[in-house]
């Protein structure tokens, strides 16, 4: 097929544009959204590209309708995405829970800006880390990815679709205004070289009768597609393996929720992605995610030049979280620093992981600007 942008070569594009192109290459053919800075360029690109690949891009009346539309599209068999920023992400929380409960593969992009409320629309922040994990109510889990470069914005979008399809779950791509609006040289691979994952479809009537069961023993049931010949019931109420509401049966509820959480938690080593820089002999560690990781890498280089054995653990996945890996790191180093563009969110996860084995210190910055490398260096040097 022909793509509405060059493939198999490098291009010079913004993070938002990279996310849109990656979604198209991942097979996304339904986009619903409501414009909001700094995510609007994703919508703009989708509106331009979708008609050219026989897909649909639609503007809804608000963000609640946008996520509802992509959940519907996913049940109709499409890979589907929406993108927003803080205020819209807050509105989407209830239906993120609906997607968790109905095990609907969708990708939700949150381009973070400073909040709360409408805050600083054009400036970057990382204030939605906890919300991206825990924003919806009830016992649940989902997957959150966090890019730090335009190339990662591209790569992680493909990954987000693959994980959503593989685990039948909503995936949040949590980025920020800085990554979204910066332009970098990005390699757009040939479609033949991109590995794509598709949801399991029922192979027979028996499987189709258990869209919320565990017919494969891996916790991930096949997903029947509306209009393909099976009768399926989809509800946000607690339901049995066939999808029928069972709202007062404790055993059914426990079985359902434990399977939904288990299919992510039991596979977290397949899902979690991270990078280590200079950690082998490190005596102090920095743990970061997203845009701040760029300054953190430079900070490590400067600290090493000063003779301080510093290293960086860069988290590409924010959730699920590898608490054990942090504890091992805490056993190795004397102190862990967590620079983030908020008043302390990732810090709490790292502190829980460190389990008292090392001191954990937050390097907080708010107001819209990324930490400079020297701001991190100065705090580490003390």
């Amino acid at each position, binding site marked *: 097929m022909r793509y509405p942008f060059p493939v198999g070569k*490098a*291009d*010079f594009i913004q993070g938002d544009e990279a996310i849109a192109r990656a979604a198209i290459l991942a097979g996304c053919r339904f986009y619903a959204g409501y414009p909001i800075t700094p995510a609007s360029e994703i919508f703009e690109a989708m509106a331009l590209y979708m008609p050219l690949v026989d897909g649909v891009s639609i503007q809804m009346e608000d963000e609640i309708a946008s996520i509802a539309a992509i959940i519907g599209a996913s049940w109709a068999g499409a890979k589907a995405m929406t993108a927003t920023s803080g205020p819209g992400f807050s509105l989407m929380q209830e239906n993120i829970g609906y997607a968790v409960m109905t095990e609907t593969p969708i990708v939700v992009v949150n381009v973070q800006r400073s909040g709360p409320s409408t805050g600083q629309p*054009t400036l970057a922040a990382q204030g939605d880390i906890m919300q991206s994990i825990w924003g919806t109510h009830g016992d649940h889990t989902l997957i959150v990815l966090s890019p730090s470069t335009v190339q990662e914005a591209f790569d992680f979008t493909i990954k987000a679709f693959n994980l959503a399809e593989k685990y039948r779950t909503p995936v949040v791509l949590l980025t920020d205004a*800085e990554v979204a*609006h*910066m*332009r*970098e*040289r990005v390699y757009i691979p040939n479609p033949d070289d991109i590995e794509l994952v598709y949801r399991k479809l029922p192979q027979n009537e028996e499987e189709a009768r258990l869209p919320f069961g565990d017919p494969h023993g891996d916790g991930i049931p096949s997903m029947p597609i509306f209009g393909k010949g099976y009768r399926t019931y989809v509800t946000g109420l607690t339901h049995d393996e066939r999808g029928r509401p069972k709202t007062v049966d404790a055993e059914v509820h426990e079985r359902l929720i434990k399977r939904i959480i288990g299919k992510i938690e039991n596979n977290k080593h397949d899902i979690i992605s991270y990078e280590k820089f200079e950690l082998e002999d490190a005596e102090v560690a920095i743990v970061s995610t997203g*845009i701040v990781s*760029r*300054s953190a*890498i*430079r900070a490590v280089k400067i600290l090493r030049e000063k003779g301080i054995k510093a290293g960086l653990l860069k988290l590409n996945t924010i959730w699920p979280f590898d608490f054990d890996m942090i504890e091992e790191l805490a056993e190795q180093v004397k102190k862990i620093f967590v620079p983030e563009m908020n008043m302390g969110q990732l810090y709490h996860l790292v502190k829980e992981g460190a389990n008292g084995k090392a001191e954990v210190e937050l390097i907080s910055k708010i107001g819209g600007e*990324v930490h*400079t*490398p020297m701001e991190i260096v100065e705090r580490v040097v003390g």
Partner: protein
Amino acid sequence: MQIRLAGIGGQGVVLAGVILGEAAAIEGLNVLQTQDYSSASRGGHSIADVIISKEPIYDVMVTEADVLVALHQLGYDTVKDSLKEDGLLIIDTDLVKPDRDYVGAPFTRLAEETTGLALTVNMVALGYLVAKTGVVKKENVEEAIRRRVPKGTEEINLRAFRAGYEEGLK
């Protein structure tokens, strides 16, 4: 190399930065481009940062500029402190009164004389910058201009770019 372009809204500073970045990408170099501007579409400062390197780029903005191109006093005053002590200052000599050594030409006037349009000042300044620094090849900038300027304005923009380039060679 860290390059910072500074002016006011409406001078096409960000587009000049994007075209310079695209030219670097065409050459196969790593490049990052970010911008900072006020919410006004005309007037108010407008800054475009371009970082070009053979190595991976971790910075997200210019911290110590090797080159600062200033097209307006407001832009210059906003970011002049980010230029390295031994950095190169390029200015529109009609519109910026700097407090340090500089090179430059009356870019806006040159733009008007060449194309009849003051708004091609960004291409004139870009040509001057490329001639003075050699940071990217002239033909790659010309390719980037063809890709990035509005359809139908390619020739006007290329003419402005070449006028600035010639001026920079003097």
